[in-house]
């Protein structure tokens, strides 16, 4: 079929082989995520590895399926900005909760009066 030709309104047309290639890459990455989660014991790093693989998958979907790589840069900046604010949100919340963690009790607060 036709390749990435440009015209005034149609814009960039994604080549079919690229769509399928990205899809297969995503499936492979999904299998990799499941495998590393079930077969690798990296302790606290497991979640980070899973998030890194998820970020790679998300980047593939955003760049190719959502057409960002051929779009005006502004759209990509909007999405990247949203993710940066999410990281800021989670990061500062984590910092705050880590600060208070040693003082936290598990479960309901223990009763003060002795029985």
């Amino acid at each position, binding site marked *: *079929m036709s390749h990435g030709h440009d015209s*005034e*309104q*149609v*814009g960039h*047309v*994604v080549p*079919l082989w690229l*769509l*399928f290639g*990205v*899809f297969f890459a*995503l*499936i492979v990455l*999904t299998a990799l*995520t*499941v495998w590393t*989660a*079930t077969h690798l*014991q*990296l*302790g606290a790093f*497991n*979640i980070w590895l*899973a*998030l890194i693989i*998820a970020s790679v998958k998300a980047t593939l*979907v*955003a760049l*190719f*399926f*959502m*057409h960002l790589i051929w*779009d*005006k840069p*502004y*759209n990509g900046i*909007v*999405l990247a900005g*949203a*993710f940066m*604010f*999410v990281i800021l*949100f*989670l990061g500062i*919340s*984590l910092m705050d*909760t*880590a600060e208070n*963690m040693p*003082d936290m*009790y*598990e*479960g*309901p*607060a*223990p*009763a003060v009066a*002795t*029985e």
Partner: protein
Amino acid sequence: MSKKNSSDGAGHAEHPKWMQHHFDTPSQQFASSKMGMWLFLATEVLLFAGLFCAYTVYRANHMEMFIFGHQFLDVKWGAINTCVLLFSSLTAAWSVRAAQLGQKGLMILLLFLTMACGGGFMAIKYVEYSHKIHDGLLWGTKYKPTGHAAELIHGEAAHGAGDAGGAHGTVDAGHAEADAAAAIETAHGEEAADDAHAADGADAMETSAHAPELPANVLALDAAERSSTQPAAIGPRGMVPVSDTEHAEAGGHHWEGPIPDNVHIFFGIYFGMTGLHGIHVLIGMIILGWLIYRALKNDFSPEYFTPVDLGVLYWHLVDLIWIFLFPLLYLIG
């Protein structure tokens, strides 16, 4: 295509019926529409970020409830759901390509396939949810494990969570200090029964759930000892030495160690996140259905396929969110 002058009050320069008056060219309109859609998608990302923050904070503070709770989630179904959504993203992106190339039949077929994948996703979600509902693994106060799940938690044949004494002390049932705890519970229960306002057992269970009574082993500690013991070691059930905990084998699961008290929060987070995501999948399916309807009416062409592009962008966002949800909920080590 004649240029439309916005200050031209009389007459109506010719332009396609889908073009708005305040735009100069169709491509300007298309670019503006896309920008607006991306700004909306950014707000959707931040919407889910709120729930991800709840997940993050609770996981940082109570890792044990995630480790315990996640074993009730089936990785197989989660992985299948991920692949279903990835395939639906492929068909959605392909349908935009088909719209650009004027391949109307192919576009409609692909949009329909995308919708079908969304339906498949919801069907698998339904299977997962019905298992949880059947096992009583719900959010917050509705968390009353029964049957299969209860076998894992209680370590013995479960009688369900109907009886007042049993429901509150279920976690203790297998523990050595159950006797002391039960004694305190029945004492409280009797006190509540004596009270005219709390006659039935359900009330006694609720009052005892809100007023934390401490098991004997914690009360046995003096104040200095209690304050120097690491808080995480003392829960409302008191300190549970690992060696005294019963192992549970049910359905291939083997659990060692104290059973956390806060598993109902994990399920609250699970249902909140997957539920909101499921609502978004349903909304996406409705949007795709509307796109199919418009496509059948011949509204789209290589010159104008903006609604297809924007609707598919929404679907890709739904897929993006699930890409992050899947490892965080299902693949906890």
